[in-house]
């Protein structure tokens, strides 16, 4: 079963989807409008870039310390949590055991993210990873 469909089948998952590197391509299911999903895509890209940068810096000072390649991140809000693994994201309610379940499913379905961030972020939705951004 596709990861997004599997996540959406779980009570408490508000929305789930995929995002691409520039935030310009995305797909989603759940309680988001197209515009909100686009915004979520841009947010996810920003956080993913940040944590990847930080892990590269750590790695340059403490090689093989286990943080690279970064797999994802979690923003734990008051009642809602956003989690991202690879180029998949999910908005979930803060229900008991839900975060652990969602993270387990996402990590298992996405698999280990390898080192090439751009290739990974484009992998599912297509795009030229060699294309210059500027």
């Amino acid at each position: 079963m596709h990861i997004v469909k599997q996540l959406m089948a779980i009570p408490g998952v508000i929305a789930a989807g995929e995002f691409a590197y520039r935030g310009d391509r995305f797909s989603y299911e759940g309680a988001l409008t197209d515009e909100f999903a686009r915004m979520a895509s841009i947010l996810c890209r920003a956080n993913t870039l940040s944590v990847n940068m930080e892990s590269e810096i750590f790695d340059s000072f403490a090689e093989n310390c286990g943080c690279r390649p970064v797999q994802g991140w979690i923003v734990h809000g008051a009642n809602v949590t956003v989690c991202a693994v690879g180029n998949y994201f999910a908005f979930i309610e803060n229900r008991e055991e839900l975060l652990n379940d969602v993270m387990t499913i996402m990590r298992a379905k996405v698999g280990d993210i390898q080192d090439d961030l751009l290739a990974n972020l484009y992998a599912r939705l297509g795009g030229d990873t060699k294309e210059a951004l500027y």
Partner: protein
Amino acid sequence: MDLQKMMDLPGAMAAFTYTDKGDLQSHVLREGTELTPQVLDLLTHSCVANLAIACMEARGWEMVTGQGGFQPLKGFSVVGLEWSVVVSGNCGVVVKNRDADYEATFTALQAA
């Protein structure tokens, strides 16, 4: 903040506190870990940055969409290949992914 108690969390490799600016204040390391105080200090600075960015995102999202539920932020986590760092407020824990219990870790950090 009882860092030793934090080390009882599943998979805990290090527990630490930091200032608002990100300077490492106190820490406990599991014996045998490759983590050092210097690496933890880098980590705490990035945690402060990530929390600040996440706070900005939460604020902006609620402002633009009208959807609530994100603020006040309770924490942030970076999921690495083998370990994750989980932070809330001014304290955090590094946990091994295979044993990680994100919920319990967030709960314990907020209760401390």
